[in-house]
């Protein structure tokens, strides 16, 4: 992880949350920030508390490479505990389904709920209910308006700003870009779009955003949308896909038409990293999502094992994941085990 790539503000945020992070590390879960060896230190923790089994569940937004990788990271850490029953539930991208699942988990008496909210406000009453029942809620990537135990995210706003900077550099500081965007109503969309446009204003004011179209997070849809956009604006030289799937869709179109486009994605999934290595995509914002899951799980274990009470924190814990802007130059730093 290169520190130069991170903005100062980002670093401060990260430090602010180090309290929880330290607690997590202190709880004796070795290899938390590296590859995991399940046969080591973790066993000691589980044997100490084997009398009471803990229940934890992850309510995801909907099945996606990101949430799958989180789930893998979470399960990896929790498995070493041997006293945790873990479930991953599908919110089906529906707020009311998530709320109903939360209700069920609360009456089931789980100890920790990992939550990737469909909507920040909509889950607030459920989180309040969980808190009353003494359940720790840890949100992933999308925060909730109701304060809760912890929030673990990569910084979308500053990440997108950094993408704008790197993209502008690659474009030589001028030209026209198109955004392939998520459907409205999701916070990430706003954070990333705002970060990107603010970043362009700050670092490359001569670059113009000429199109901002919805492509439903989807590679195929992105191909169709970009083809139409290019027909109307043939002089576009840069494309920002608000996730990697849409950026990969843009890459397909560029290859097909033999265009030289600067294409940036977001998230850093395996396929995107490979495309960057092959020179088909310019870059993406990469976070080790496995690690993000492990970190959340570590926090959960600390809270559930009574090591640290969530109430001990005056305000909600906030853990920012480090990220890098992966381009052809930096993508080599990402180890195979860190690719999801």
């Amino acid at each position: 992880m290169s520190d130069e790539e991170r903005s100062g503000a980002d670093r401060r945020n990260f430090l602010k949350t180090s309290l929880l992070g330290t607690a997590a590390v202190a709880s004796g879960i070795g290899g938390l920030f590296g590859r995991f060896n399940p046969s080591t230190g973790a066993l000691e923790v589980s044997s100490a508390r084997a009398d009471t089994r803990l229940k934890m569940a992850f309510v995801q937004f909907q099945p996606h490479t990101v949430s799958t990788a989180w789930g893998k990271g979470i399960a990896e850490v929790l498995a070493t505990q041997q006293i945790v029953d873990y479930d991953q539930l599908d919110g089906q991208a529906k707020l009311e389904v998530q709320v109903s699942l939360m209700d069920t988990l609360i009456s089931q008496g789980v100890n920790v709920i990992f939550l990737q909210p469909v909507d920040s406000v909509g889950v607030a009453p459920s989180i309040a209910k969980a808190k009353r029942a003494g359940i720790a809620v840890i949100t992933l990537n999308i925060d909730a308006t109701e304060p809760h135990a912890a929030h673990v995210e990569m910084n979308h706003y500053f990440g997108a700003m950094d993408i704008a900077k790197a993209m502008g550099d690659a474009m030589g500081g001028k030209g026209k870009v198109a955004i392939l965007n998520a459907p409205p109503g999701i916070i990430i969309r706003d954070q990333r779009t705002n970060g990107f446009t603010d970043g362009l204003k700050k670092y490359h004011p001569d670059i113009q955003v000429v199109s901002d179209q919805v492509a439903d997070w989807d590679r195929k849809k992105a191909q169709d949308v970009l083809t139409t956009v290019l027909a109307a604006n043939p002089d576009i030289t840069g494309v920002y896909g608000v996730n990697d799937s849409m950026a990969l869709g843009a890459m397909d179109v560029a290859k097909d038409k033999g265009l030289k486009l600067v294409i940036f994605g977001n998230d850093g999934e395996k396929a995107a990293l490979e495309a960057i290595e092959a020179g088909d995509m310019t870059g993406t914002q990469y976070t080790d999502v496995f690690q993000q899951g492990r970190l959340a799980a570590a926090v959960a274990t600390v809270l559930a094992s009574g090591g640290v009470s969530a109430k001990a924190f005056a305000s909600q814990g906030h853990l920012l994941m480090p990220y890098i802007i992966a381009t052809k130059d930096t993508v080599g730093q990402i180890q195979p085990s860190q690719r999801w």
Partner: protein
Amino acid sequence: MHVRRATIALIVFFALTISLFSLVAPRFATTSNMENLMGGFSFIAILAMGEAFPILTRGIDLSIGAIVALVGMVVFDLSLIFHVPGYVILAVALAVGALAGALNGLLIVGLRLQPFIATLATLATYRGVVYAISGRQLVPGLTTTPIADPWITGLETYFDIGGALGTDDFLPLPWFPLSFFVMLAMLAVLSVFLLRTKVGRDIYAVGGNAEAARLAGINTGRIILLAYALSGLCAAVAALLLVARLTTATEALGFGMELSAIAAAVIGGVSLSGGVGSVFGPALGAFLLGAVLLGLTLLGISQYVQQIITGLILLAAVGYDRFLLIRRQRRLAANVA
């Protein structure tokens, strides 16, 4: 006759389901789980009751999920952007739902469109309108502002009846959500309307044999229009309860909810070929689906398996309906003097 027997079968099946889960699913027979069932599925029950009307007229309403989103967004905008008082919002919300439903009816009656096509078209249209009027898009910052108007949030209230009656010492009762009582009230009103009023009987007549109804002088167009307006109105009530529960509305609210409502209606014995059914059946059907989903989740069964099981229940309901029909015909053939 037919309706009654199917309803009894449904009640028995519901009771069996509840007993089974109480035995095998951990923490199913708890007051908090019953609260979840009532709080989480009363609005589905209301949607299903609404859906019963179009189906009774041999139609279908695919747009109710979109109407839920539309009404939800209207409430969101009025409350957070325009700061309209809550009682006005409630009235406007109901009117919007009924009008959106009536528009469906108008398309079906006026343009003689197939209900499936007409409501599929309005589904897309209403969803589009939701995005266009979305206060979350128009006014930045509102995405993280909850709706706090007491008229709206008051709909998500729980009543401690057990505590008030003092039964908690020997029989702990769950706290009853207001949405459950709203559902009960609508069930009572709509049942009486269907069974005891002339217009209600006309709905059955139109669904049973539209031509006979027309020749009997029934204004079939007006009845169909009314059926869809009622469906829209129920969707509006469901939307209000949902918004109260979530303290916000999203563009994607109610997505796919029409399918749950249709499933509940069919499981509740409303025949897709029109003219047969009640509103009690769909309401119970919704809670049956809810109990199954909650029970299976508590058992830790994967949600994909849950969907398969839900589908099988739906198939069984349709199959049972057919079975009753065929057996009735056989008996008749044997009995006719």
